[in-house]
């Protein structure tokens, strides 16, 4: 259980940070700002974001299986990995449920 939680926690942070970079760096530079020299330097962002997300999903599924979550909760946690900040909140929620005293 502890290992699954740690894996989820790491991936929730990675997914959250990558979503923030994607939404607030990659998308503005590519679609709203006219800075062609910067566009080439940020090509890696959507690629890294695309590959870390399946790992995030796998950690959610592992945790969900161990904690016996219902389907709706699983879907919510999977979608949390696509929105900035949402995965941080998801991680906080899991931490609170595992350590009610904190």
């Amino acid at each position, binding site marked *: 259980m502890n290992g699954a939680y740690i894996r989820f926690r790491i991936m929730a942070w990675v997914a959250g940070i990558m979503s923030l970079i994607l939404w607030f760096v990659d998308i503005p530079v590519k679609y709203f700002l006219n800075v062609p020299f910067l566009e080439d330097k940020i090509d890696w962002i959507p*690629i890294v974001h*695309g590959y870390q*997300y399946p790992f995030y999903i796998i950690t959610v599924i592992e945790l969900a299986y161990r904690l016996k979550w*219902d*389907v709706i909760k*699983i879907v919510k946690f999977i979608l949390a990995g696509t929105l900035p900040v949402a995965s941080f909140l998801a991680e906080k929620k899991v931490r609170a449920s595992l350590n009610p005293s904190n």
Partner: protein
Amino acid sequence: MSRKIGFAILLFIFAATFVRLGIWQLDRAQLVQEISKPVADKAEVAIETLIKPRISIPDNAKGRLVSATGSYERILQAPNQSSGENSVRENWQVGILKLNNGAGVLVVRGVGDSTPPNQLIEVRGRLFPSQIEDRAVGANLASEISRLDSTVLLSRVNFDLYDGYVIVISEKPDSQIERVPALQIVVKAAGFYWQHISYVVIWWLMALLVLCMPLFKRRSE
């Protein structure tokens, strides 16, 4: 029982949709790969045989290697231009080459002040579509052109002009001027190959998860 069948059909529809979305992303990845492949140049042609004056350049003429023979009617400066190879802004020397058929074409000669000889000149270069946005706002109309677009010059010449402009690769007789790279036109497709492949992984993983949902449902009950 009917509820179970309905649930199974719903899961199947979701899984099939996710698989189809994965295939769509796979197609897009292949498309991006195809578009980014370098394409060999077609044979050089005389510009008069490829396009007509006062008519927009057709798509199949954009980026073609062309030749033109005529004499320079006027030399202008096009400030704040860049070749796309780097982001350095330069002042390009642009000539209006009047061809034997009486029409003129905008020709980017290079960077610098080297004046072309006052005689018949044979130009080889690559044809590009007109620029849409001004590169130099408030350009001096007598000696400058705000963007590489023949429509900007219509009121300044008394002959027809071809649409677009040619970046010179060579001139005969040659003059010592620093040339601007006449690079092939690159068609940019949205996204990258490996980015689309990552979406394929995500969609197919989603399809797999949907098919495993009954397992999670049973476990949570």
